[in-house]
């Protein structure tokens, strides 16, 4: 795996992400500053990490989405390169047009940091091949604007094409408003683009990869990716 982690002013989970990538893949990722016009040669995974790029001022992710490096990411994704966009990264990816929809304020208008349960909807993706479809994993969220919204046509397409990859659920895998902490449509927690090579998700799998720090449920996302890239290489 040759991962590149994007760094925008105000991003703050890039270290968490880099540590996890190192831990799981054994390789140090490249940290790429937002003004770079190109990605490091040989990059096979771009990660847009969480945080508050530009303070989340204006709209979450809006300013970062228009950075020079994002043009390079678009080109990379168009060629089929894998992009993992987490939390603020998801917001940036939506603003940049890499993924459809918008992330609005949480339904209760408050920032929420807690462990949530996700039902893995498909294992047929480079991002989820480490899981079984239907499996429930526990990972933390930490966001104020994670309420996924798109027009009904887009939602129908996402659902119809099996592009909803993670859904907020109860511990036993039921979709239930009480377990949908931010009010997202259809309890959507993570989606992929049409081609399946760009994943956006609100929760932080990178924060749950060590038993001593809570749980290891996020580990298999990165292990699956590493495996996929090793096979592809």
């Amino acid at each position: 795996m040759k991962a590149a982690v994007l760094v925008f002013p105000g991003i703050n989970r890039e270290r968490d992400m880099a540590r996890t990538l190192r831990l799981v893949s054994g390789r140090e990722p490249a940290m790429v500053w937002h003004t770079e016009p190109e990605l490091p040669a040989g990059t096979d995974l771009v990660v847009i990490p969480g945080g508050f790029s530009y303070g989340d001022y204006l709209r979450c992710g809006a300013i970062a989405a228009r950075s020079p490096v994002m043009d390079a990411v678009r080109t990379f994704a168009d060629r089929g390169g894998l992009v993992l966009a987490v939390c603020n990264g998801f917001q940036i990816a939506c603003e940049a047009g890499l993924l459809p929809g918008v992330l609005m304020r949480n339904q209760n208008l408050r920032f929420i940091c807690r462990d949530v349960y996700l039902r893995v909807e498909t294992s047929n993706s480079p991002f989820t091949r480490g899981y079984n479809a239907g499996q429930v994993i526990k990972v933390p969220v930490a966001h104020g604007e994670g309420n996924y919204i798109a027009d009904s046509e887009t939602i129908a397409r996402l659902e119809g094409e099996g592009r909803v990859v993670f859904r907020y659920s109860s511990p036993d895998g039921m979709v239930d408003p009480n377990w949908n902490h931010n009010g997202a449509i259809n309890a959507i927690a993570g989606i992929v683009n049409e081609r399946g090579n760009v994943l956006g998700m609100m929760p932080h799998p990178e924060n749950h990869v060590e038993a001593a720090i809570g749980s290891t449920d996020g580990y298999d996302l990165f292990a699956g990716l590493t495996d996929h890239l090793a096979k592809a290489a």
Partner: protein
Amino acid sequence: MKARVTVTLKSGVLDPQGKAIEGALRSLGVEGVASVRQGKVFDIEVESGDRAKTEALLKQAADKLLANTVIENYRVEVLG
């Protein structure tokens, strides 16, 4: 009736959002913007058909909730 409440920062109050937007516009090549200050609008539909009553109601809403009068000013317009 329809009305709009516009809430803006008092002058002198720091607007970090406005500042960040100025910078972003510049780096997007939008030249010639001297300053940006961000505020909020609330488009409100009110049950009453009475202009004066609507105005009073919205002043109340702004004072109680929509504006933080320590740092913000507001303006109520009844659009009819």
